[in-house]
């Protein structure tokens, strides 16, 4: 059966892109430089009109929320075939203070509040963004932290859930370019300090439920003062405050959600939650939830299939690291980096801790394999936040990008106005050789030294490779456009659920190859840190693209297969249009 190819028109193959590189576009603001060999990314935010600076409202009081945001979301809100960008904005954490009291003012001319930038991708592949916040009816003006994306009412338009230090907001995408705030009607507010959130269909009823990770009980009135390495004030760690419990909202299918946190058994364990990623970790067909907590045990909520979850993190080996130590987990990403058909976890931590790789044995038990894969030592100098498995070079291996930035004063930067800057990292998967830090070889885009937090991943220019948007704390948003070229092929799949949720979030896709193990990927927008990524599923295929078929395990439980798959293209697979599939032999 032929796959449904609906985006051929948008698909600019690598070959076409090479041809276009020499053309002179009409976009005066586009200043993309041809990358030198080995520099996979070029930073093009300002050049493409994605101009946004995060304002954290720091006033010298060292209120903890100042140092934790922001995230970023990539979503095709207007269904024009390209990814738009939503950027949460903070404000003054103390409502009694005015922005004039901030140490680092909002840049002149930049409006307050969250912003939505529409991608007006040019025919020649050039990116151009326009701020459409006001037209879209957005612009949440609280102290936003992160954002999750998902089509909760299955109307084909992606909705937004914005987390905040304060009231969270659910924006329903009306389908006409506008959003409306349906938080109260939907019953999904959480007044606590919320961080990452994720849409998932935990009860397999075909609509997306919502998990919200919460951090700590912080109030301006209860602000504590903590000292840094020289006795001067610095931001407190999570231990200074009590953790706040997380929330699971069940989608009732009528525009309303029900808080089922207690009924689902999630109340018995919680910590200062910062990251969340949902996947079927034990291979039983039900979506599980992994929560990364800051300085406390992480939780692995295994879905029991009856509306309840059980936290198996300790015995599964993912609550604390191999050395019995709870780490300051911030961002988290799940992916099958070793191509054995299960979801492995990578999470980011404080400097002087390592980031941690937990390898799944297929049953939901994990081994801390950080050192064995050479991921420990390279992370020691950095405090990691956003992170994702991505195949940046289309060689079919999942690599890693990590957004770094300190939360306590960097000794080497002491005396500077905002001494928390670090560089981000690009880490290549070298297969059996482990991972190699390629940051130094990756050019100016990876040489930026900023306070990075959220990071979202997706093919913004529809050229078949994964671009990255990095959300910086107290700094400008960065767009790292992937300019990798070469002989590697790719395939990007959009799912269209019919019995399952519309975007097929939670589905597992197996790309079957001749003579090689299948490549497993998951349809998701969650993971990283405070951020939401492209809901399409990207496969790097390497130079010899020998695709036989694609199998999909839908969230609803059915399995289908499609043959005759083209490469270097975007395809859509609609649930019910494939052949029944028994799965990998």
């Amino acid at each position, binding site marked *: 059966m032929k796959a449904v190819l609906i985006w051929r028109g948008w698909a600019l193959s690598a070959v076409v892109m090479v041809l276009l590189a020499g053309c002179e576009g009409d976009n005066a603001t586009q200043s993309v430089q041809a990358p030198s060999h080995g520099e996979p990314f070029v930073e093009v935010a300002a050049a493409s009109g994605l101009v946004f600076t995060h304002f954290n409202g720091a006033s010298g009081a060292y209120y903890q929320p100042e140092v934790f945001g922001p995230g970023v979301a990539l979503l095709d809100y207007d269904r024009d075939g390209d990814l738009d960008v939503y950027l949460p904005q903070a404000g003054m954490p103390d409502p009694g203070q005015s922005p004039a009291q901030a*140490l680092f003012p909002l840049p002149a001319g930049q409006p307050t509040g969250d912003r939505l930038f529409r991608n007006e991708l040019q025919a020649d592949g050039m990116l151009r963004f326009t701020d459409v916040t006001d037209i879209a009816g957005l612009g949440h003006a609280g102290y936003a932290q992160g954002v999750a994306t998902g089509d909760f009412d299955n109307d084909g338009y992606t909705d937004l859930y914005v987390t905040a230090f304060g009231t969270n907001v659910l924006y329903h995408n009306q389908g006409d370019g506008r959003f409306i705030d349906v938080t109260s009607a939907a019953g999904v507010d959480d007044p*606590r300090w919320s961080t990452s959130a994720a849409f998932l269909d935990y009860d397999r009823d075909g609509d997306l439920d919502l998990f919200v990770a919460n951090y700590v009980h912080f109030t301006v009135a209860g602000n504590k003062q903590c000292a840094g390495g*020289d006795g001067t004030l610095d931001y407190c760690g999570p231990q200074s405050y*009590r953790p706040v419990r997380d929330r699971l909202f069940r989608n009732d299918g009528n525009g309303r959600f029900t808080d089922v946190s207690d009924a689902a058994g999630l109340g018995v364990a919680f910590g200062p939650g910062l990251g969340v990623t949902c996947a079927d970790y034990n291979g039983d067909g039900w979506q599980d939830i992994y929560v990364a907590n800051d300085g406390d045990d992480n939780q692995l909520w295994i879905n029991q299939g009856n509306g309840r979850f059980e936290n198996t993190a300790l015995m599964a080996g993912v609550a604390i690291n191999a*050395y019995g130590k709870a780490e300051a987990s911030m961002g988290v990403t799940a992916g099958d980096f070793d191509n054995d058909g299960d979801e492995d976890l990578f999470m980011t931590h404080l400097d002087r801790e390592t980031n941690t790789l937990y390898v799944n044995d297929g049953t939901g038990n994990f081994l801390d394999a950080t050192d064995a894969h050479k991921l420990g030592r390279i992370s020691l100098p950095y405090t990691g936040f956003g992170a994702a498995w991505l195949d940046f070079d289309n060689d079919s291996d999942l690599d890693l990008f990590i957004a770094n930035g300190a939360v306590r004063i960097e*000794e080497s930067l002491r005396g500077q106005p905002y001494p928390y800057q670090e560089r981000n990292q690009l880490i290549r998967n070298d297969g059996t050789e482990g991972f190699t830090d390629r940051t130094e070889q990756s050019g100016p885009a990876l040489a930026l030294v900023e306070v990075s937090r959220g990071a979202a991943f997706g093919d913004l220019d529809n050229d078949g490779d994964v671009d990255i948007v990095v959300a910086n704390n107290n700094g400008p948003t960065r767009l790292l456009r992937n300019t990798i070229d070469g002989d590697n092929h790719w395939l990007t799949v959009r799912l269209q659920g019919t019995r399952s949720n519309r975007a097929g979030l939670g589905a597992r896709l197996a790309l079957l190859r001749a003579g090689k193990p299948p490549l497993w990927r998951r349809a998701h927008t969650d993971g990283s840190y405070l951020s939401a990524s492209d809901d399409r599923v990207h496969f790097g295929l390497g130079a010899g693209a020998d695709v036989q078929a694609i199998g999909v395990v839908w969230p609803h439980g059915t399995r289908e297969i499609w043959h005759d798959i083209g490469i270097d293209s975007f395809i859509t697979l609609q649930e019910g249009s494939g052949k029944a599939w028994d799965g990998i032999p």
Partner: protein
Amino acid sequence: MQKTKRYMIRALPGLLAIAAITGCLRPGDPDLPDIPELTVVEFAEPVRQQILAARAQLLETPEDARRNLRLGKILHAYKLQSPAIRCYQRARELQPGDYETAYLLGIAQAQMGDDAGATANLRAAIRLQPDYAPARLRLGEVLFKTGELAQAQTLFEELLAQEPDSAWAHHRLAQVLAALDDAEGAIGNNRRAVELYRDFGPAHYALALAFRNRGDTELAQAHMERYRRQPKQTPAHVDPLLASLDALDISATAHVRRAKRLQASGQPREALLALEQAVRVEPQSIEAHSQLIRLYHRLNDADGVERHYRAVTAIEPHAVMANLEYGTLLAEQGRFADAAAAFEKVLAAHPDHSAAHTLLGQAMEELQQQAGAERHYRLALENDPNNRRAGLLLGRLLMLTDRRTEATTHLDGVAQHSDSDQALYLQRIAQVYREAGEHERAMTLLEQARTQAAAQGQERMLHEITQTMTHWRETQ
């Protein structure tokens, strides 16, 4: 930056900012690092004087290695590692043969993430004083962290030859062996570690995962259970050189730390003295005042509680521990409205504080404000479903108002926790059922409480439960 400084002075009225120490001498050997210029350090006056005096002495004889070491140690004691390292480096240059300097410099560098420097100096310390075992342990830890597994293994093995009964050395060697894929070697060493120190949490955790990987579920569960009971418990490090830093710390924080140790070892009067010393050093220390309120409360000294409560609320009206302790004391005195006011102060700044909601609910129940009490118990549970006290009180209140089904749900939830408090809670739940006229169920729960108390070796509790059972049987 001016704004920052103004804020800090306003926000920390009790702390005196050290004025910039400028214009210091830079005499002596030009190859030596400069004596650190401490520009914006904020400490209580006695600490400030201690640092200034040590620095002034050093400036008199800047090439005196012992004085460099002393200033380094004082700064290190207050976690001012960067300037401490400069002082240690000067001392090390001036007196290369001193192992204490090499060791402390290596420790400070390791704490600051300078693994190369730490490795060099800890190696030097071992060379200078091969018998000082903690240096081997610390160097092994740094080497392990930086992936030098073979060298780390050698060091831990040498350490075990020196101190065969070091639980830490066995555990660290086990970590290296696990990283080298020697699972059996790792299990053997961790087993020895828990033989030497039975509540060694991380060693039990490592054993649990190792047995899980081997498919031995029973042993895995047993070790995980031991880990759960004491997850952070580890053997004390016997390290006289690091202990000497602790002795130099005269801050309120250090006195509070000592007081907690004294309380834990059953010396409340000595703890009181340490805490009073803490508030003399730093009159604005909320932690010290709050601990004093708690301790005076335990010692039934209402005047002491009152005095420190007044002091702490002048600094921070919403101070959590102070208000909760003070409110509890007032409730014990039957002053429930005043107690409620104290708990409300906490909730004004911390509206999600589960314990404050529980206590406020309890006070309201005493004031016959059942609806308010119920609301606060529910808020307590909403914010922390593991709050057993709130669960018990809500269950009891619901039972009293004849909402038995929901009451039973809450009471069952409270009974399900398994830890050292389980016997106590089972006893209380039994009491609730007895008050509700369910004598048989009450007696069953009391028997369960007795079994738990016996299993946990809680003699006093066991005695109390046995007496209650006898009484109930007689009065039924």
